């Protein structure tokens, strides 16, 4: 991938939106503005939203737009410094000590250091974009650690000293909002709440993302999914599910099922909860027919 200077890519929110579209990601004005501001102000970008609205995809698109590699740090309860920052390769160190015998050996050499995502990004800030995914799953201790990293962009390794980033790395954080993030973290970031797109935009996204789906199908899927999302489901379908549904229905239709039937049969890729399925089943035929009309 060609290396691009962040400032030259992000000349205006419109330019950002255009290049995101080239990276097959359709951002609305508000998201494009937030991304533009994050790049230009040199602040981390915090994306919040319901599951399946394309937060992680946005990060991937940003990495592509900048021509950089995406380094992903998936958070979970109990994640700690050894998983996020760095770790020593103890087995190799022990072996090296054995092997060296009487010779002197530096067991804190680079070859024994396993760089975890934060350190990887720190070492090459101009080639990598850091994605801290689902930060709401981690616990408060990790959030504090991240806070320190995000404010100074440096990591201290006791055996090696402090490693500092040469340039400000681009960092994207995502959260499903299963818990409130610390105010201090929100404050340091440029913030954007990604909602579900409207039917027109969703149809565009489906067209862009799905393999070969006819425009009419995409529009019908978008409309039907909007209706289904309005119902009180345990897990409302995300955008990825809508794309899958359009794909699956198209495949079934090519296999010989007529239109409304193909949608109904492919419902398993859209709704993945038994209760939701039985809740929506009686209405599904009507919803699909209305959407097709």
């Amino acid at each position, binding site marked *: 991938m060609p290396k691009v200077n962040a400032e030259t890519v992000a000349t205006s929110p419109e330019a950002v939106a255009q290049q995101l579209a080239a990276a097959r990601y359709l951002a609305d004005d508000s998201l494009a*503005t937030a991304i533009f*501001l994050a790049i*230009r*102000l040199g602040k981390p970008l915090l994306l919040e939203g319901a599951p399946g609205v394309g937060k992680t995809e946005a990060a991937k698109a940003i990495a592509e737009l900048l021509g950089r590699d995406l380094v992903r740090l998936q958070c979970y*309860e109990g994640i*700690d410094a050894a998983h996020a920052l760095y770790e020593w390769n103890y087995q190799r160190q022990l072996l090296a000590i054995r092997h060296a015998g009487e010779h002197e050996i530096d067991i804190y050499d680079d070859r024994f250091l396993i760089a975890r995502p934060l350190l990887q990004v720190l070492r090459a800030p101009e080639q990598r974009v850091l994605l801290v995914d689902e930060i709401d799953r981690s616990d408060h201790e990790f959030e504090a650690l991240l806070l320190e990293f995000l404010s100074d962009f440096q990591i201290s390794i006791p055996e090696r000293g402090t490693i500092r980033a040469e340039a400000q790395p681009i960092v994207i954080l995502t959260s499903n909002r*299963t818990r409130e993030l610390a105010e201090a973290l929100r404050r340091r970031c440029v913030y954007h709440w990604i909602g579900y797109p409207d039917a027109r935009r969703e149809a565009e996204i489906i067209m862009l993302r799905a393999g070969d789906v006819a425009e009419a199908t995409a529009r019908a899927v978008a409309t039907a999914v909007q209706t289904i999302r309005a119902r009180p489901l345990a897990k409302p379908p995300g955008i990825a599910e809508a794309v899958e549904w359009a794909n699956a229905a198209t495949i079934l239709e090519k296999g010989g099922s007529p239109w409304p039937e193909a949608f109904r049969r492919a419902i398993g890729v859209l709704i993945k909860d038994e209760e939701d399925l039985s809740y929506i089943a009686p209405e599904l035929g009507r919803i699909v027919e209305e959407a097709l009309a």
Partner: protein
Amino acid sequence: MSRDLNNTFSPFTGRRCPEGADEGQREPPMSAPPLTCLPASSPRKRGEEGFPRAAAPLLSFARLLRRYGFAIAPEQVSSFMQAATLLGPRSMADIREAALATLAPSPDRRNEFEVHFRSHFYGDGQPSVEGEEDEETRIKDDGGTREKESETARQEKGGALSSALEQLSTRDFQRDDDRLTAFRRKLAYALPARRSFRTVRTHSRGKLDLRRSLREIVSADGDVPSPLLRRRQTVPRKLLILIDVSGSMKLHTADYLKLAHAAVQGADRAEIFTFGTRLTRITSALRIRDRDQALARAAAQVDDWDGGTRMGPTLLAFLSVPRFSAFARGAAVVILSDALERGDHGALETAIRRLSARAFRLSLATPLAGDPRFHPETAALSAILPELDDLIDGSSLKSLSDFILSLARPAPVASTIWKRVS
């Protein structure tokens, strides 16, 4: 949702300030961070005469938001102004986007934010933030709110509660008090535990701790001393208490709230919600150490004291908020309710089933079970019985606190116990 209208609470001084009397003195400490909102070509120097006049509305907008209880830091204000400069600003929409991205209003208060924005920049008159009155179960989260809910509201809504408090205090206040203190102290150790991903050092029963062992080896010049061990830590599970505050539970709610307060004080991670016709999160009110103060605060937050119950729909509403239903995941869930659902209990059944699928252990404490002749025979109760881990007596503080302290010990599921009884 006019809850923020009268709020003149200042996040800086922590005092209530009269409207308008604070202009100038509550200005953010603007001189500290260098303001770069001036274009580079600007002939003016910083500090010569402050910022350009055009920037003043931006600054006062941040101040306005603060007055309505949005937490906005000085550095956010400066990045707001930087952002506006970066964007042009070519239109009002640019300023709005900049404000949204940098001032980061929480999604729950987004509508309120929009109203303030319109009133400030377009002069839409007095901001009025109206909550939509609809069929949906209203959810109230006390997370970001500060002391508000003016005094009058507290008097009128806390009335029922405080009289109930008095009534109880004549009973056996002293004994209950001691019991709650003991409960609070024991709770942290009595909750069921799970294995955490983190490890602790240990001297027996563990895996090799390579990191520490290597340091030992290095400091011992390559000798291998006795290996150091570590094992995965156990942490207490979350405790989620859902309290029914409807009319039929009137006699018990005061007791339950006291218990909930003790639970929040004692446990690391406890969450308390009340439900009647609405769902209210009162955890942060109960974090206040002083019990009377905490209960008064909680009482003011709950809007549906002694009303009807819509247990099914409110529990479903609880589950439909991802943030809340995440509290239930892997937690010990205790519902304090008589489960007297009027009419159709389909929603209740669904809600209990979903809750039990998420929870580590789901218990229903009903005051009706204090009666020895009680048997789960109502349609709603018998429908949800197979999903419950425990159905216990919730008529007294003693039985309840004893039960919660025994949550870590295994017990046969509710349906087998109650079958045996019959």
